[in-house]
Structures are given as C-alpha cells and as structure tokens.
C-alpha cells in the first residue's frame, strides 16, 4: 500500500512490514519489573491479527508502544517500516495522527464534543492530511453512513449515544485519516454478544476497504474466530512468562 506522506519508506524489503519489533523491553518508570520483553515479532502489512492477552499480560503496554504513546526502554519498534521508537516526541505524535487509528475499550470520544467535532479533531491533528470545511463534513457523513449511523448524529453530543454507537463513532474517528494501522484495545468489552460480532465484522470490513493493518487485542478468546492470525501475548512476552508481572 502507498505510504504517501512518510519521509523515508523502507525500500529494500519487498513486502513492507506493518509492524516489526526487535528486542523490545519495557519497564515503567516507577516499577522494578519488566512489563514487556519481546525478542522479535513481525506482522505483514494489511494483515489483521488477533492478539490474545489476559489482563496483566502487558497488552496495553504493547499497544502503547505500537501507537508511539510509549517508548521502549530498549530495542526498536518499527511501524510501516519506520523506527518510531527512535522518533522525537513531536514526530511520534505526528506519525500517530497520520498513520494510526486507535480505538479504546471505552471513553473513546471527548464527551463535550459533537460526533462531527470528535471526528474532525482527529483530522485536524493529522495536519497535512487533514481536510477542512465542506470536504471534511462530506467525509464524516460518508463514514457515518458506512458505519450504519444516522446522519443526524453529526451534531449530537457523544455522551448521548449508546456505547455501541459510541464505539462505531470511534471507528469512524480512527478511519478519518485513512490510517495504515488500526489499533483496537478491547473495543468490544462493553458490548453484548450480538453487537460484538457485528462490531468486529464491521471493523474487519473497514480495515480491508482502507487496506489497513489491523491489530485487535482482547482477553476474550472467543473473538479469535473472526481472525486468521492469532497471537498469544503470554507466549510472546517473556516478561509475562516469567510470571513477574501480576494482574
């Protein structure tokens, strides 16, 4: 897929890796123990992967590293061929806003902003790729339609929506900048079984339409059936295997 605005694209590797972790270790500032220790992990571009991780397995840390919200204590994190672990803070923020869409478990949206403003904010922070005015409204409308949300939701405050609706708005927000990587952190944990399956199907469809790499993390193993690649974080994370990090 074209990584349009990135400054340096990985030219030598033929199929660009979506994610490439090498010797990544992470320890929180005030903690004695290693939270994450991954020797090597790679994910091809445009793939969808389900990462199974019970609480305490270091999944939030892993996602933080992938999103560039955290920096590893040692090792390198490459996303879309770029070593974001070696970026400066502002560079990482910019990279995240332009290439990565994040969907959290809950509280995805800013409660005092309307649906439209929430999505527009994501577009604003991406800078160069950001749309404005009519074009933006048009795009937000398309996304809402695609996600099966009525158009009159645009002006609604997000705290008036049901959780299922909020999570779909969160997908719209993640998709507004046509991200190369979508990171979803337990986005379905607050949904009932039916809504959960619909949500995952929708997310997978959208990721495919936008040819985005999708990393979906959950402690709920039953969701693994929707994905063709499944990774057990406990097996991957040496720090968790040692049993050092308790829940």
């Amino acid at each position: 897929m074209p990584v349009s605005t990135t400054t340096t694209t990985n030219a030598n590797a033929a199929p660009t890796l979506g994610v490439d972790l090498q010797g990544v270790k992470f320890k929180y500032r005030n903690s004695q123990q290693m939270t994450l220790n991954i020797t090597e992990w790679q994910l091809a571009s445009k793939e969808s992967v389900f990462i199974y991780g019970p609480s305490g397995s270091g999944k939030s840390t892993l996602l933080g590293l992938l999103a560039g919200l955290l920096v590893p204590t040692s090792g390198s994190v490459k996303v879309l061929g770029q070593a974001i672990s070696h970026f400066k803070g502002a560079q990482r923020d910019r990279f995240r806003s332009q290439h990565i869409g994040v969907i959290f478990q809950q509280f995805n949206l800013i409660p005092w902003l309307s649906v439209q403003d929430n999505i527009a904010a994501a577009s604003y922070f991406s800078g160069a790729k950001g749309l404005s005015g009519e074009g933006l409204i048009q795009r937000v409308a398309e996304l809402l339609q695609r996600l099966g949300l009525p158009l009159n939701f645009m002006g609604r405050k997000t705290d008036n929506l049901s959780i299922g609706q909020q999570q779909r708005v969160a997908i719209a927000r993640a998709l507004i900048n046509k991200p190369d990587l979508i990171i979803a952190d337990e986005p379905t944990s607050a949904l009932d079984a039916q809504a959960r399956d619909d949500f995952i199907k929708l997310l997978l469809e959208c990721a495919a339409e936008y040819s985005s790499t999708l990393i979906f993390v959950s402690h709920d193993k039953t969701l693994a059936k929707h994905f063709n690649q499944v990774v057990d974080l406990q097996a991957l994370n040496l720090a968790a295997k040692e049993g050092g990090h308790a829940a």
Partner: protein
Amino acid sequence: MLHSLAWKSLLARKVTVCLTVISISISILVLLAIQHIRIDAKTNFTNTVSGVDLIVGARTGQLNLLLYSVFRIGNATNNISWDSYIKLSEQKQVAWTIPLSLGDSHKGFRVLGTTEAYFEHFQYANQRPLALSQGRAFANTFEAVLGRDVARRLGYKVGDSIILAHGIGSKSFSQHKHNPFTIVGILTPTGTPIDQTVHVRLDGLEAIHKGWQSGVDLSQHRKPLSNQDLTPSSITAFMVGLNTKLATFTFQRKVNQFNSEPLLAILPGIALSELWRMMAMFEKVLMMISWLVLLAALIGLSTMMLAAMRERRHEFMVLRAIGARPLFIFLLVQVEALLIVVFSIAAAVLALSAGLWLSQELLMSTFGVSVSPWTLSKDVLMPIGLTLLITIVTSVLPAGLAYRDSR
C-alpha cells in the same frame, strides 16, 4: 482548534465555570473599583482649591487648618480677630483675601460666611473660577448662595428662604428662625465640598448672632437695625492671594510670627499633598487586600481546574491518541483558565461601569467626589495585565499536571 476546543470544554462545564467567573469577577471588580476611585479621588482631591497662595487660621496643625477651611471637616480650635485680619490683609504683598467664617449649618450642610471676594477670587480645579447656574452672587445681608448639591438635595430654587441653625449638627435645636435668608443664586457643580456649602455674607452671620451669648438666643428676637454695625469681631480663617508668588514664604513667615495673636499660614498645595500621603497609606492597604482577594480567587480557579483533572484524564488520553502533543494539552488547560479570567475581567469592567454610572449621583452628593463611569483607562490596564499574568502562573500547576500525565 485550541480555542474552539477550550471554549467547548468550558461550555460543557457551564455551572462550575459560571461560578468561578462570578467569584473572580467580584474580586476583579473590587480591585478595579479601588484603583479607579483612587485615581479619580486624587484628582478630585487636588482640585478642591486652586489659585490660593496661603490659608491663614489660628495656630493649629497644618492638616487641621486645611480640613476645616477647605474640606469643611472638623472645627477650628480658635478664631482670628477681625483686627488681625484687617492688619494682615492690608500688607502690601497681598492682592486679595477671602475671609471664611464657619460654625453654622443648614439641615446638615455647612454654612460659610464670606464676602463677595469669594466669588471673585476663589478657584478650584485648574484655576476655574466659581460660576452660578442660576441667579446672582449675594449682595445684601440676608442673601444666600447655595452649592449645587444643597439645592438639589433640598429642592431649593432661587427665591426660597431658609433658616440657619446654630452649630453644625444636622438636628440643631437652636435655629436662627427670626432671620431667614433668601436664596439668590445657585452655583454650578464643582465636584468639591463647595457643592455642599451654603454661602452667606459675613454681616449676615453677624446679624443673626446679635444678642446671642454662648450659643443661646438672648436677643428677644429683635430684627437687626439697618444702621447697626455688623462688622464681625472675629473670623475662622482667610485665604490669601499675593501679588507675586515670590512673596509667599516671606508672607508666611510674617503670619507665623504675627505678634498680636498666634496664627498659622499654610500653602494649600503642600498641605494637600501631606493629607494625600496619609490617605495613600490607607489606600495602599486597600489595594493590597484587593490583590490578595484576587489572588485567592485565581488560586480557586486553579483548584477548580485541578479537581477536574481526574475526570478529564480520559479526554486527554483521547486527544493524545489522535495525535495531540502534550504541549497542546498544557496549552488547552492554560487557554481555558485564561478564557475564564478574560470573561471575568469583561464582566467586572461592565459591572463597574454600570455601577458607577448608576451611583454617580450618590457619590457626588454624599462624598462630593465626581467619578467618571468610564473605567477602561490606562490606569486599569496594569492590574488587568497583572491579573492575566498571575492566571498564567497559577494555571501552570493544573496544566503542568495534565502535561505530565499525558506524556
């Protein structure tokens, strides 16, 4: 984006924000009111007397003499004999004198006995002479000229007659009821104690006191005869205009060393500034208190912001996830605080202007100070600027916390 986000975030917390705006604007209101009134009062204050070279009274403190002769506050400790007054006013350096005789009142307003020279030579503000808005200056024994406020408050017009009371209380039992005065003129407003003064002639005061002894009427209510000698035996003080300013200190020394009775001559300008310095102490304390109140309100603002930090963690997280820099979050909190303070300032300025506009009359009539309702002068820009600066400093705490948490 930063501003629209900050604005929407404040809107989402209307009630807390409104209360904070009210509490801060009250403290800013107090601060600006003190600052504004102090500057206007100072101008007013120094405007009370002008063009008078010296004020002469019985020997007392310089402030006491100034207070009773110019501000009609307090009482003279002693009088000047008429002979001494004549002797001093006939000195060759003297261009003119205005005799002042105080001690009577009319419904709480002081009565000043003087001569026509008062209307001719007395000046206030920047050498502005007195002017009459109605009628004429007094020319006969039982004629009176009112200050603007006396006429307005008591609803007098030219042609009405008034009775003076002995002493200066507003409820006096000894009235000079057999010798009413006719109002012949009303002065234009001056913004000085003159507005609250009833002016009569010295011989008028002398006439109504004929036959009185120690404040008791023993006159058997006789009308004074027209051929009677109405030269007073003493006056309270007098103002002096000299032919040349250079003679001021010579003449002052002459008065202070006057043989026949102990007298004091003061330079009004110097006495006024000494009085102002005393008032300045008080005013500085007031200013300091109002700054402290404002500081407390601004710390309250920062407490309010800090208290909101916990519940706002998620929204900062979301902002970070969609690419906002930690600096953006720092600025968001700062801009919110500044917006609150800017609104408070606007509310305070509006309220102060409206309040002064409404109370203009009252301030003028009760305190004799004219205060302009226009508050946005360069003198309040400093406190406003300083307020914004303090806001930035006190909001560093919540903004810094938000910054640290979102890193």
